[in-house]
């Protein structure tokens, strides 16, 4: 282990076998079951989406299987009114924080409606240009601070994202202005095909907080309990005016970067199989629950059935969603369309109506 790996040990509450290694938290059955259900719901969504893509019913999709604990654990620590700035892979987080399943699917169906959160849910559209959302989270957090609320912002981003200038600038601004923001990194080991060893010379992402005198911590990103409690602490600090935190959640993406990617080109997929066995976020919680006597197959079946049902209904909703409206192409560029846009719209629509060629 390097010095930095020692300085930033991976915090666990529960190990891969479901043993509690840090007993300082009070874990109720209902809380545990809630975490499990949320993760199962997310996983069901993810698997369904991969299938929908294969069947050509949605476009390219970015799966998150394996990262449910990181996303669900962190998102569960937020409260209504807080702000979430996700990436294209953080649907378990947005789902947990309030997006509907059909909204998420619409996004991958190429529908702008997939970016619109329900009323009262401060969920920003997924950031596609890598790391651009970090300064946004800083700004939204600063806005809350200026308004005098105790709301916070959380930004999700990957290991690859740490290489972009916007990562650096977002963290520096947050630390200078003591913004109530949590930078939640999911270190899933890869940026498309590039492994973290080629992305950075450092062995941890947490140590990057040192550059800003920013609190940083490394958690086992597949341990939903560690993620939940550490995120909660960081959020609490932010709410109390103690500034930002960088959290590195060490996790693993089981599958492809997106459905357009073939991971066997750049890594041995056996590793993913091993990880499924050893550190799967759901499996290890199941192991814990079994030890605790919280587990009940009937309960699990019931939850799974509900998830399936919800997802199936969402698919239906997505597929019956009104056709895209060509007016939307023109009508949301500015609050009041400029004459240029009006003219283009009119010309296009009239040509479309009278199309004769």
């Amino acid at each position: 282990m390097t010095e930095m790996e020692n300085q930033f040990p991976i915090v666990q509450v529960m190990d891969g076998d479901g043993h509690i290694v840090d007993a300082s938290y009070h874990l109720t059955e209902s809380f545990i079951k809630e975490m499990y259900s949320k993760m199962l719901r997310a996983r069901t969504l993810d698997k369904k989406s991969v299938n929908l893509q294969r069947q050509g019913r949605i476009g390219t999709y970015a799966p998150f299987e394996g990262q449910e604990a990181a996303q669900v654990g962190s998102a569960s620590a937020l409260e209504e009114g807080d702000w979430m700035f996700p990436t294209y892979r953080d649907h378990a987080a947005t789902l947990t924080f309030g997006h509907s399943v059909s909204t998420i699917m619409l996004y991958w169906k190429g529908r702008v409606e997939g970016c619109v959160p329900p009323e009262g849910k401060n969920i920003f559209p997924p950031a596609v240009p890598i790391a651009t959302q970090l300064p946004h989270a800083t700004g939204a957090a600063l806005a809350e601070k200026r308004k005098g609320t105790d709301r916070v912002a959380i930004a999700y981003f990957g290991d690859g994202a740490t290489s972009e200038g916007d990562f650096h600038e977002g963290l520096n601004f947050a630390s200078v202005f003591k913004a109530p923001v949590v930078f939640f990194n999911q270190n899933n080991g890869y940026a498309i095909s590039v492994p973290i060893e080629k992305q950075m010379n450092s062995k941890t992402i947490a140590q990057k907080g040192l550059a800003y005198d920013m609190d940083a911590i490394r958690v086992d990103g597949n341990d939903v309990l560690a993620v939940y409690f550490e995120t909660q602490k960081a959020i609490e600090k932010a709410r109390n005016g103690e500034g930002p935190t960088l959290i590195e959640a060490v996790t693993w993406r089981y599958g492809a970067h997106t459905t357009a990617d073939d991971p066997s080109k750049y890594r041995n997929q056996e590793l993913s199989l091993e990880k499924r066995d050893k550190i799967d976020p759901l499996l290890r919680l199941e192991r814990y629950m079994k030890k605790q006597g919280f587990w009940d197959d009937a309960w699990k079946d019931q939850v799974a059935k509900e998830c399936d049902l919800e997802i199936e209904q969402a698919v239906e909703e997505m597929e019956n969603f009104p056709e895209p409206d060509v007016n939307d192409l023109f009508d949301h560029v500015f609050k009041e369309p400029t004459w240029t846009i009006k003219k283009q719209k009119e010309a296009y629509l009239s040509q479309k109506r009278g199309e004769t060629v």
Partner: protein
Amino acid sequence: MTTKAMTEVKTNKLTLVQAVTDGMRTMLSEHDDILVLGEDVGQNGGVFRATEGLVHEFGEDRIIDTPLAEAGIIGTSIGLAINGFRPIAEMQFLGFVYPAYEQIMTHASRIRSRTMSKFSVPMVIRAPYGGGIRAPEIHSDSVEALFTHMPGIKVVVPSNPYDAKGLLIAAIEDPDPVLFMEPMRSYRAFKSDVPEGKYTVEIGKAATLAEGDDVTVIAWGNMVSVAQKAVEEMTKQGVSCELLDLRTLYPLDRETIVASVKKTGRVVICHEAPETGGVGNDVMALINDEAFLYLRAPMSKVAGFDTPFPFFALEEEYLPTPSRVSHAIKEAVTF
């Protein structure tokens, strides 16, 4: 000019940069949600003194010295803007906006459309631009065209103190992002009457600075005074020139431009930026589309060359001059 009535309003003689400050001060006093962010905008009052005194009046919480990072400034401003504030972000020079280009292109200008208006970015990006003050490299870049081609942002350039304040207030009130370009060479070139308090100059409206029948001369920002000198000279020589100060580069003032060209049939456009890809071509395209049959000569441009803005020892060779504009006017009317 599309401005409010000014009876009984007190006016002050201000330079363009003072008018900019006055515009910010006016709006900052009235609206708590307006913030100013940028490099050296606080204690220092900006490298051109555009934010002079504001930090003392409104405090460090609202006039915010940021770290030296343009993407950070714009990105953070976007976060503030979607969450209830109206940031005025200063780029110290337009030539230093490039590191923020991604934030403006992929977010500031798109957030309304990608969220079907759920979120919006009522932000003003202020930036001094243009040559003629013997500044070091990059400081003189005039890259309005990088923004007129960017869907979702408006581009505004005043040429005088009155318009500067009125357009800036209009930009601050605009519900969408506006790039507000400040012509450096005109910052202290002259003073003129600027009303106290709030007034606006409508975005999207050009000003007709001279009426004439033979040729339409079109300019903006620093080039207005250059064009004006040429127009004065050519008028003496008996050419009847119409002079338009565009004031807004996106969206262009279609009515005014087209009506003028229909009358004159001849066009000379003057800008600092390199000719290829410049906003001059947008103006030409508009005229081609809407007044083609009225043209009596090819449209012509007096523009920067397709070369990087030179080191300042050569800047006077690069920048359009009254004599180059006059030459183009002559060619147009004798075509």
